[in-house]
């Protein structure tokens, strides 16, 4: 299978990852702003807000990819470059996602002493690493031969997912919930 053949699946996978990340961003935007004990509904609402904002922002890389293709002199070659770039973009994200899911599963399943380990050694540092992982993903587009078009789309996608949390936070959770 060539990268071009895998392009639709890659696009779906990256979009799904972006949406899941957006949902978590919505959760993080709300976390620390609501001191109630029972707040499942508020958490679900914040997660959906993140998802909605993320869905909107992720149109940016989609439109960028469309514009790059429309403006390209050789669309087949540009399409292939974007597909190769998508593979390079996906690799760091896949590693990061795996680490997050393992840490999250350990946190949710293990008793509190062991879950602290998952939190302190996993989820805390991994939250801080998000911008670096996206930078690595952008570098991956170049390393995999995607060139400038793939880097442009990757940068738009990275900026989009990094903007979700601050936007949701400022719009709905700028002050502690009353």
């Amino acid at each position, binding site marked *: 299978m060539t990268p071009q053949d895998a392009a639709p699946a890659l696009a779906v996978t990256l979009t799904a990852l972006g949406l899941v990340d957006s949902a978590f961003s919505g959760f993080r935007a709300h976390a620390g702003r609501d001191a109630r004990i029972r707040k499942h509904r508020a958490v679900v609402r914040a997660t959906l807000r993140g998802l909605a904002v993320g869905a909107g922002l992720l149109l940016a890389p989609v439109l960028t990819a469309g514009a790059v293709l429309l403006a390209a002199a050789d669309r087949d070659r540009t399409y292939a470059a974007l597909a190769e770039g998508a593979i390079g973009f996906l690799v760091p994200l896949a590693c990061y996602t795996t680490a997050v899911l393992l840490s999250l599963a350990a946190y949710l399943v293990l008793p*509190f*002493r062991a879950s602290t380990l998952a939190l302190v050694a996993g989820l805390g540092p991994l939250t801080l690493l998000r911008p670096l992982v996206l930078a690595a993903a952008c570098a991956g587009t170049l390393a995999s031969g995607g060139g400038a078009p793939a880097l442009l789309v990757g940068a738009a996608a990275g900026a989009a997912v990094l903007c979700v949390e601050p936007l949701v936070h400022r719009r709905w959770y700028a002050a502690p919930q009353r």
Partner: protein
Amino acid sequence: MPHLEISDLITATDPRTGARLPVRRAEVVHRLREAGDRHAARIVARLPADRHDVLDPHAVDRLMIGVHTELQRLSEELRLGKRLVHILGPVFEAVRATATGRLRLVDVGSGLGYAVRWLAAHHSLGPDVELVGVDLDAALVGEAARLARAEGLDCRFVHGNAFDLPEAATVYVSTGVLHHFRGPDLAGFFRAQAASPALAFCHFDIAATRLAPIGAWVFHRSRMRHPLGRHDGVASARRAHTDETLLQAAAAPGMRPLLYEPRGLANPFCTTLRPVIGIRPELEAPLRRAMGRSARRLVGPEHLAGAAR
């Protein structure tokens, strides 16, 4: 250089009357600079003050509530409620062996009252335990009471001195308070409880491991938004008392001091917070029985003396 926490400096309360005292911004900034903490001084210099340079009390209250709300997130993630029940369940089981009637848990320096409200929401200690949070900060107490009312929780909050309540506590608890006491005040804190009718105390604080300041930095950097919260989170980890200091200070007459998960017995990655416990000597055996296998993690001062030999 001493490690100072901004939140300790920007509010002042008369301990006798509970009245709020004015705080001059320049004095706080000067104190932080004297301590070599320019970053903290810059944070305070940005806080609003009136024309006499007195910090705006309303702004400070809003800030304190905001930071404590964020801080609660860390307690939630570290499952502080379950940690409390893990120890307090057996403590109250032991206490019930001698005490009769209504028991009273008093949370000293309760802040937004997360511990008390969590225990109330989960009915963790039984219906015979009254849950009371006490703090010297009126704004935090007011917000804690509002949150409890909003969720219909069976607990109450008092603005004032925890050792000056009209009704005696059966068990005193606190979370993240011990490192605020320095020098003789730490022993004085434990002596006040030993001299009271209370049968036990259980105070959770940051474990003073080598990893604690690094972990606190990562954790607060990734979780807290306001610079004050980030600053104080790391400062508190640096101020955490050693096992030896805690056990020495907790050795008040009439109380058996015990430390749960001291450094030698615990993985530092897993033990971010752990309690120092004091219990009337006759209740130690019932407590150990109630804790079951977990009692092996409970050590007295003789353990540290043995480890030092």
